[in-house]
Every structure is written in structure tokens, then in C-alpha cells.
């Protein structure tokens, strides 16, 4: 099982880089993963999306896709793609420390 160190914290990740245990996530881990995927600074809007992804995953049992994020996190589809330009479908979940979404939308 792969272990990576993000922001000084050793976390377990799967083959695609998603955290295996959401509980190992910290804001510092998020910042380090974000930097790795080309987001140098996490803005308030990023945090709003990440917090939604974490609470939604905890309550729904699966991580949200872009459609669900846009419906509830207070950002537009366009903004979401500006915040996570290399693909919000995967990257929101990766930075938020939740599993890869199964949603197709």
C-alpha cells in the first residue's frame, strides 16, 4: 500500500493518488496535494468547494461530482473549472481527501 507525505503528514493513497482514509486529511495535506496538481494557492472559493465535498461525502457515503457540487456549494460550473482547471471531476475529491467520485456528471 502506497504512502505519501503531504504537508509533513504521511497518508495512505490509492493507485490514482486519492486518500484512502478521509480522517488522515488536514488542510495542510490539501494544500500540498493542490500544489502537486497545479493549484499553487487555495482561495476561499476552493475551501468552500472542498468543505462541501467533505461534508457531502460524509453524509451521502460517496463523493460528489461537479453537478452536485455546483448545485450546492455556491460556485458556478464555469468557476469550478477555473478553480480546478485540470479536471474538477477528480481533483476536488483528491484535494478534499475523499474517494474518486463514481458520478458521471
Amino acid at each position, binding site marked *: 500500500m502506497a504512502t505519501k507525505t503531504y504537508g509533513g503528514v504521511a497518508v495512505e493513497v490509492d493507485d*490514482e*493518488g486519492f486518500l484512502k482514509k478521509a480522517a488522515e486529511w488536514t488542510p495542510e495535506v490539501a494544500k500540498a496535494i493542490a500544489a502537486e*496538481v*497545479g493549484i499553487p494557492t487555495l482561495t476561499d472559493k476552493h475551501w468552500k468547494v472542498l468543505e462541501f465535498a467533505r461534508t457531502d461525502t460524509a453524509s451521502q457515503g460517496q463523493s460528489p*461530482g*461537479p*453537478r452536485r457540487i455546483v448545485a450546492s456549494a455556491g460556485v*458556478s*460550473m*464555469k468557476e469550478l*473549472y477555473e478553480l480546478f*482547471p*485540470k*479536471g*474538477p*471531476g*477528480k*481533483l476536488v475529491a483528491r484535494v478534499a481527501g475523499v474517494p474518486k467520485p463514481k458520478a*458521471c*456528471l
Partner: protein
Amino acid sequence: MENATRKIAIICSKGSLDMAYPGLILANAARMAGHDAMLFFTFWGLDIVNDKKVDHLHMSPLGNPSMPIPAMIAGLPGMEALATKMMVADMDKLQIPHVREMIENLADAGAELYACQLAMDMFKLEKKDLVPQVKDVISAMDFIDKSEGAQVIFV
């Protein structure tokens, strides 16, 4: 892991409701995963981006061996409307957006939408007849040029 150069080009050649979604969903999935996506609407596929038709796409139960009804009955008047209504209801239940919203989402997500010039001429359409998300009307050769290096999917 981050394969930034991957590019998907999807040709949408059919205008029925059940043939509209696969291309739109795949293009959207490509953008979700961070890949470039372009769509080329040609022939009946133009209906998907025709402003007057996009909200009224139908699915036909005829000639579809997957439909659980005999062809004789599938051909009766009203069956197409019924099949369409049932499909839309099922998709609404799953909160799948309608085609117009899918197209808006795709444009917001940075996918590029193009219409086929030859098909436009055949159906006597102009750019103003299309939804505003269509970036340009291009020739088949333009599509080949623009999709250089892309993985092409024909629907």
C-alpha cells in the same frame, strides 16, 4: 497520472434522444477528468444543437431490438411520444440534466462545440439557428485538422 495532453473528439451524427446523451456524457466526463474535449455535430446530430429542436428530441421504439415491445405495437401512433416520455421521466429521476443544460454545462466546462457545414447546408440552417454554445460551423476537413492527435469517438 495527470496526462495533460489527452484529447477526445466526439462526432455526434444522430439526433434521437437516446443517441444524443452518450456523446454529451462522454465529452463531459473527459472535461471532468481534465482532458480536452471537442464535439462535432453532423447530419441528424445537428438536431442536438438546433435551438428549435434541442428541447424536443425524441427516441423511437421502432427498429430497436432492445425495446421490450413488439415492432408492430412500437409502430403505432403515440408510441414514440410514450417512449420518449418514459425515458425523460427515468432520467429526471436520476437527476440527469436535459440536453440543453448538458450543452450549457459542456460549454462552461470548456468543451468546444462545432457544427458541420455540409449538414448545415443540407438542412438549410444558419449559425443563428443553433444554440449559442456552438463555437463555429466548420468543414469536415477543419474537423480533421482540429482533432489532430485526439482520440475520436463516433456516435
